[in-house]
């Protein structure tokens, strides 16, 4: 046990320089100033990748043998559904970090992630409904995948609503974080819904563990769109987080200095 206690006692002090970035990231001021430098490049990258993927998928990819051209909705439906779920994890993890380490910025990230995730979930549901009409003959079916995605939308809405249900920002953040964490149980249900239940929804096109079930000419633009949606998500999350930082820190001296410098007062 000696080696263990040695390790434990010497561990944190040795590692502390490596953790500096973590604490710096927790400073709203640092994040605000630094993210302002990232934003133009990230936005440009998101725009270029999304435009490439969209033109490629809509105009150049071959049509599906069974579904014809309606399958092209996949190029926005799948990336939106992907990010709706990844975004939920990001929100829940940010909430957990806020609860455990009491980092101010992580609760702001959590709050920022909720409306973005809700919009992306709406996009996945809406494009799915529009795709369902020519493919299944119905806009809406109470299918396991669709219902669990609708629950995801309600969870996002719940996290957003809780932010306004308390007078104290701290209490609101904690309650939202707990709801976000409890709601993560829905994510594996969404993922496995097409395997666990007999559903109308087609099985996953992309799996990490196996080759995609679609032709490369169709798959490549989808991959580009997923990357583009991730970049877009990063831009949107940074913008919403900066907004939240400004709202909460507007009385602080660093925000005042920033505004004074900008306006040349």
């Amino acid at each position, binding site marked *: 046990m000696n080696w263990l206690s040695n390790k434990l006692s010497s561990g944190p002090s040795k590692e502390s320089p490596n953790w500096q970035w973590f604490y710096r990231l927790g400073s709203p001021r640092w994040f605000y100033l630094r993210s302002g430098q990232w934003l133009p490049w990230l936005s440009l990258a998101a725009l270029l990748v999304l435009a490439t993927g*969209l033109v490629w998928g*809509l*105009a*150049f*990819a*071959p*049509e599906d043998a069974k579904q*014809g*051209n*309606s399958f*092209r*909705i996949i190029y*926005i*439906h799948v990336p*939106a559904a992907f990010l709706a779920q990844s975004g939920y994890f990001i929100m829940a993890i940010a909430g957990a970090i806020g609860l455990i380490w009491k980092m101010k910025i992580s609760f702001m990230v959590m709050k920022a992630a909720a*409306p*973005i995730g809700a*919009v992306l979930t*709406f*996009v996945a549901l*809406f*494009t799915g409904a*529009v*795709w369902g*009409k*020519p493919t299944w003959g119905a806009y809406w079916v109470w299918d396991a995948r669709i219902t669990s995605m609708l629950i995801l939308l309600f969870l996002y809405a719940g996290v957003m609503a809780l932010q306004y249900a308390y007078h104290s920002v701290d209490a609101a953040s904690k309650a939202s974080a707990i709801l976000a964490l409890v709601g993560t149980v829905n994510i594996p249900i969404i993922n496995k819904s097409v395997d666990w239940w007999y559903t109308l929804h087609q099985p996953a096109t992309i799996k990490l563990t196996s080759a995609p079930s679609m032709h490369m000419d169709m798959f490549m633009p989808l991959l580009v769109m997923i990357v583009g949606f991730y970049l*877009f998500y990063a*831009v*949107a999350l940074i*913008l*919403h987080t*900066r*907004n939240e930082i*400004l*709202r909460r820190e*507007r009385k602080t001296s660093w*925000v*005042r200095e920033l*505004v*004074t410098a*900008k*306006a040349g*007062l």
Partner: protein
Amino acid sequence: MYFENIAALINMDGHGVYVWTSVAVTLAVMLWLVIAPLISQGRLLKEVSRDIQRQQDRELAAQKASNHEESN
């Protein structure tokens, strides 16, 4: 291009209305996700600069008042 011409791209063998509706709605809400925080940020920054201005005015007025008292 996979399609013969632009008209075929728009029509997509009758599926165009579904595909283009999805694309239009998606792009619209994504654009809104980016524009909404920018608008609100502009409003917040303006509010802060108004606060600073107001504080400066108050300080200036206080200074003037004390100068006035001294000269009396």
